[in-house]
């Protein structure tokens, strides 16, 4: 049926498969570095040390798994919401190739130590330029498809898609400005506190424009698709959209509370972070209210379970985040394990659960088959949920314990614990985290197997039909 419409679904298949490959790399490296923190002997210098692998973990996760699957679903969703085939399938094929070249180059150059140190903007300038080319190709294709659309009204998902395209472009270009020294070495164009402020404007809005607006676009499309009932409120979606993309850009400096950047920038960041609860929770409520009369589907429909748990973690994430952005609480937990606990609730919980649902839904559609095993998908769900909760909860406890120890004082005002005395207490939590990561990885293995069997089953069926 899809082929009759002339949709470019082969490209969707390509991006889904490759994003899963890079997602597996991200989790494998993540599990490895979680063990390295607990067992330093597992560092194998020079290439396989924590310092070089951690950027590979974050880049493979955000750009390989995240952006890769967003590209798949932006192409999938845009064609269907506009009832228009992709503007240029040829350009999209170039995009798929370039995407894999860029991510592979990123992994290799980072392992070699070609690294600009700014978080999520580590890639050296030649690779960064390829990322820009990739994004322009992608954006032009999506925007042109929307311009030439056959459906006049643009659904909420398309707004989030458009905002993502422009948001990522602005952020990436500004923060990656550099002074090249050679092909493999460059320095940031900004210095000191300025560089820090630009970086965290980028860093936090990468969370907005990569880890929030794309999964929201996907959530708003796939929740009604899987439940069979429309989204609760279009108007709430409108208000939430504009206030979200307005407020997010003010909040970067909450990563720099108590650091030497102007106080008023920090205070604005703190205020807007708290205000962000409103648009974030508007999306959460829009999801929940869309389930009115449909809650039985949490039991009957495995896709709904992924999506609703995903939006629930989004809701918790957007309460925890603003609380961390308050000066007093930041003073306590900043620089501790609390923060990785927070981040992984967003990435493993919110973003990945929504992406899993979208992949489970889309793969049978584009391969014209049925999902191989729903019980396996349910097993994947529970392993992902358990692994992520073990990870996050152990890190929250570790963060609070270390913070309390770091702040403990003697009656004479001196500090009660040295840094090392607080660090050695963290080992049991690090073991817990590594175990949580292994459980998540096991879930991922069942997911990959399930999708693999679904795809091969679909191909076999197509071959049988042709025969």
């Amino acid at each position, binding site marked *: 049926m899809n082929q009759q419409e002339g949709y470019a679904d082969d490209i969707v298949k390509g991006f889904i498969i490759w994003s899963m490959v890079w997602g597996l790399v991200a989790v494998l490296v993540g599990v490895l570095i979680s063990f390295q923190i607990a067992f*330093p002997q597992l560092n194998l210098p020079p290439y396989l040390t924590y310092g070089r692998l951690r950027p590979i973990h974050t880049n493979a996760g955000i750009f390989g798994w995240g952006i890769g699957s967003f590209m798949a679903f932006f192409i999938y969703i845009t064609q269907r919401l506009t009832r228009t085939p992709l503007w240029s399938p040829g350009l999209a094929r170039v995009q798929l190739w370039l995407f894999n070249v860029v991510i592979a180059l990123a992994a290799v150059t980072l392992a070699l130590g070609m690294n600009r140190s700014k978080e999520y903007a580590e890639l050296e300038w030649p690779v960064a330029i390829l990322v820009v080319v990739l994004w322009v190709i992608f954006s032009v294709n999506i925007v042109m498809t929307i311009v030439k659309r056959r459906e006049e009204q643009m659904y909420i998902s398309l*707004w989030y898609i*458009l905002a993502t395209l*422009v948001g990522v472009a602005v952020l990436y270009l500004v923060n990656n400005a550099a002074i090249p020294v050679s092909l493999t070495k460059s320095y940031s164009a900004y*210095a*000191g506190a300025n*560089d820090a402020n630009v970086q965290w404007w980028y860093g936090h809005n990468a969370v907005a424009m990569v880890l929030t607006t794309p999964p929201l676009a996907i959530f708003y499309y796939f929740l009604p698709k899987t439940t069979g009932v429309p989204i609760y409120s279009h108007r709430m979606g409108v208000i939430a959209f504009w206030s979200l993309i307005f407020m997010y850009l003010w909040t970067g400096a909450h990563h720099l509370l108590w650091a030497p950047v102007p106080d008023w920038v920090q205070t604005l960041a703190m205020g807007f972070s708290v205000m962000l609860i409103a648009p974030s929770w508007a999306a959460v409520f829009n999801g929940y209210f869309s389930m009115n009369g449909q809650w039985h589907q949490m039991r009957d429909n495995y896709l709904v379970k992924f999506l609703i748990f995903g939006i629930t973690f989004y809701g918790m994430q957007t309460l925890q985040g603003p609380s961390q952005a308050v000066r007093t609480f930041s003073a306590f937990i900043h620089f501790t394990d609390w923060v990785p606990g927070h981040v992984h609730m967003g990435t493993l919980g919110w973003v990945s659960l929504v992406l899993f649902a979208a992949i489970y839904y889309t793969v049978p559609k584009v391969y014209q088959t049925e999902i191989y095993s729903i019980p396996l998908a349910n097993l994947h769900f529970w392993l992902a949920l358990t692994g992520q909760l073990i990870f996050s909860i152990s890190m929250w406890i570790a963060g609070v314990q270390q913070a309390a120890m770091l702040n403990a004082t003697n009656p004479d005002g001196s500090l*009660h614990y040295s*840094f090392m005395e607080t660090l050695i207490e963290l080992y049991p939590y690090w073991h817990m985290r590594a175990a949580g990561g292994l459980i998540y990885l096991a879930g991922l293995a069942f997911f990959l197997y399930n999708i693999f069997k679904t795809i091969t089953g679909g191909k076999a069926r197509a071959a049988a039909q042709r025969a």
Partner: protein
Amino acid sequence: MTIEKKPIIFLLLATATILVGTVVTMVLPFRWINDPKLAIASVKPYTPLQLEGRDIYIREGCNNCHTQTVRPLLSDTERYGEYSKSGEFAYDQPFLWGSRRNGPDVARIGGKYPDAWHVKHMKDPRSMVPRSNMPAYKFLEQPLDTSLTERKMKALNFPYTQAQIAELSGKTELDAMVAYLQKLGNDIPWRKTGKAEVLGELKNPFQDNAAVLPEGKKLYLEHCAQCHGKDLEGEVGPSLKDLDKPDAVVFGIVYSGIPAGSMPAFGDSLGKERTWKVVTFLKSEHRR
């Protein structure tokens, strides 16, 4: 809502919406942060050797575990020293403040330990800090690649002399790293001296108390033996076998350190009571 039917206008409006917060919180601060009033005259650019060390710090991703900002909070300033000022980072491209302390902050590590301590620690962290989870960086003993050094100094507009470039030959990456670490945080005068003096009368509460000797010895092995030897024979630091000084003086040295002699201060990490236990152990060894 006609805007949802006009994608190009929608795109422009979304861009404008994104740019408001961007201009206020990212573009405007360039004015304030670059305010000449915040400049610090004593802050100097990196030398060629220090810059190469900094680039190795970046290459190895040290910023993934070590921060370089001391916040104006008791738990930071008592542990690491004077809080960080924006003027101190004027030559940092990129900044290296970090976001997670899997290891301690290093903004003020310069001058805290002697070079030899850093060399031993980088090659084998657990020999100096038991139960540390830092990777071993023995491989940094390879020769320093200086082919780009001049271009780097020019790109950053840092002053240098040909003599400084010539001095780089024969240096290892580890030498450069140590040179960088020893520069960190030393651009402003901030080190407290004579901290022990503010503690009032210095009388050893454990004098001749043999019960504290096992703990004193344990603390010595944890904190002191890496430089002064398991049997007090001396290595990086001098031998302590014949420590013929009054208890109060020994306490002052351990508690406040000797900045000129590269003896670190242990007051912050040991506290008063445990410092006295170390002193009692050291003196008991002398009397034997």
